[in-house]
């Protein structure tokens, strides 16, 4: 049988994954994540002024109103994104009036304010959601792969898939920590949404490979587990790539034409899906091989 000896190079794949993951982890330790007001609480105010304004001056004017502004991010067309501690609509109205005196009519495009309790809840819920999703996927896969013949164990299939999935989560979170530091990209509720979507999608490709391993196990009794996995990957490589490709295509279209608001959401999904395809072939399968071979 013709197949590519994928598993022969498993340490190379682990090495490559480490190379991708390490900078992200270092960045997570050094810079952490740049959390949006969804998590930290606070106010985000997007305004458009008639005549151009100086960020430093906006901060000064706000200070006079007892509003502490952390940052002013200017965009084209005199649009400014202000971040501050949680303020009320009334305070924001006062600020707009004050700014209006200096820069002409002020249009409020967006006003978001989140209290600290809501932020803390979201953080808690996010962690819980990622953990619960992982646990459910292990349980489902263990159940679905229960027909795997002895001496192989079905929950190892589930756990290997989840390890690969955690790899994807770490890759995306790590890269966004770097993005946060260098491009000021924020982690918001949508980012968590992207993470969970990635979790769901990451196991797709893993399942395609594992499903084939399950099918081939009774058919190829004379082959080693490693050979069966190699063979299964070779057989399913085309569909793994094609199913990811269709998703990458629609996401790329969204990235190019979909507008500013969801840009980083789409980027997170794209990175996650590419990482998911890689990890299902080059992480989930080798982990399963190492694990199942341990006692033989």
């Amino acid at each position, binding site marked *: 049988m013709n197949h590519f000896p994928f598993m022969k190079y498993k340490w190379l794949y682990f090495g490559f994954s480490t190379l991708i993951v390490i900078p992200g982890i270092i960045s997570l330790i050094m810079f952490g994540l740049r959390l949006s007001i969804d998590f930290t609480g606070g106010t985000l105010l997007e305004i458009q002024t008639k005549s151009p304004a100086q960020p430093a001056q906006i901060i000064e004017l706000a200070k006079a109103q007892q509003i502490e502004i952390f940052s002013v991010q200017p965009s084209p067309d005199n649009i400014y994104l202000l971040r501050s501690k949680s303020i009320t609509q009334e305070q924001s109205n006062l600020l707009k009036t004050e700014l209006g005196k200096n820069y002409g009519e002020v249009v409020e495009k967006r006003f978001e304010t989140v209290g600290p309790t809501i932020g803390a809840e979201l953080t808690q819920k996010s962690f819980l959601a990622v953990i619960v999703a992982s646990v459910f996927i292990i349980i489902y896969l263990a159940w679905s792969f229960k027909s795997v013949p002895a001496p192989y164990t079905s929950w190892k299939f589930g756990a290997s898939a989840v390890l690969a999935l955690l790899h994807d989560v770490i890759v995306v979170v790590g890269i966004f920590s770097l993005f946060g530091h260098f491009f000021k990209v924020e982690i918001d509720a949508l980012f968590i949404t992207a993470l969970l979507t990635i*979790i769901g999608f990451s196991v797709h490709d893993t399942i395609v490979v594992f499903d084939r391993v399950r099918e081939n196990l009774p058919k190829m009794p004379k082959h080693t587990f490693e050979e069966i996995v190699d063979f299964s990957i070779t057989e399913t490589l085309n569909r793994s790539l094609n199913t990811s490709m269709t998703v990458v295509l629609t996401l790329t279209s969204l990235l190019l*034409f979909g507008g500013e608001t969801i840009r980083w959401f789409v980027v997170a999904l794209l990175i996650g899906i590419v990482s998911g395809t890689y990890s299902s072939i080059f992480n989930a399968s080798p982990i399963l091989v190492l694990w199942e071979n341990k006692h033989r």
Partner: protein
Amino acid sequence: MRTSIIISACLLVAVLINMPPQFSIAGRKFYRPSINLNLLGKPFVRDLNFKLGLDLQGGTHLVYEADTSKIPDADKPQAVLATKDNIERRINSLGVSEPLIQVANTVNQFRLIIELPGVSDVTEAINTIGQTAQLEFRLPTSASPSSILDFAPTDLTGKDLRIAQVQFDGGNQVGGNPSIGLEFTSEGGEKFAKITRENTGKQLAIFLDGMPLTAPVINQEITDGKAVITGNFALEEAKRLTIQLNAGALPVPIKIIEQRTIGASLGNESISKSLFAGIIGYLVILLFMVFNYGFKGVLANVALTIYILLSLSIFKLIPVTLTLAGIAGFILSVGMAVDANILIFERIKEEIRWGRPKRAAMELGFHRAWTSVRDSNVSSLITAGILFWFGTGSVRGFALTLIVGILVSLFTSIIITRNLVRAFYSK
């Protein structure tokens, strides 16, 4: 045969639902139908327009936290109901079309989530919502009052009322006539005793925010601070009245803990951009499938088009509130909807490579790819379900579009494609 009838029927309905509201062909005008049914006593009315989230049509999303710490535990449910009712009434006075008001209970506090689409003056809205209800007891100024102007306020107000509850004649048995029991505070009881003593035989009207609720006649002096309003109340009517009375009796301070206001201009721009991205994405997928799977790819593309029509119909029927993230989720799902077909077609290729006759290979492809199709979709459903539980607003919209997308794509990519493949390859 039967399946193709079902499929055609689905398709016809989907096309009808997704038609533009009105259009004309050769000078004749056509209108999109709307739904107005009565299902098992519940009205089911849909105008078949897309329901747009606040981020797309502009408006404000408010979350209030209600402080019920000063209210005795036993009275909390009434207080919560009364607060919600009070806020609903105030929002209706603002004239907002299709406001959304939800009560969200957490462990020991309750929250009100309010969405006001298309509100231009948010400051006014917030001020109006934040007011507490003013309950007043008014006495007539003339012998035969003919309008609400003929009543003058007394010193008895909502502050003096401890609670209002629905009671039943002949003890607390359900089945008697419902009446409304009022319990005053000790100070309120004294005021009430004085009023009832001096005005026996007159009406004592109760006003909420300047509007009359009810105007019972005082039968005798009441000194124990407990009064009963009798009358031919229907149970619903009595409940409604107690809720309104409690709005004055059990004022609950509310505080904004989250606010998101989005201008309408931002939304319009987002819709057109997403629409364009979606169309490009769809076209690229069509090309990809034809390039990789030839005529079978064309059939999958037909199924994909049906998928889009069906999903959009379901969004209109449920209705799913479309947010920017939700639309992104749907565009993403267009890429995922063909996945099952890819798995099946690759399997067919394999079966042919292993020497199966073409027609047997087609059937086997659908059959044998099923486990991997099922498992991958279930894993997505698990995460989408968790997202739905975890999220609010925008995140929920995304999760719901994803869930609808996965379920519909299973139907189109398996049942519809299989029938198309059978129809074209069976000869």
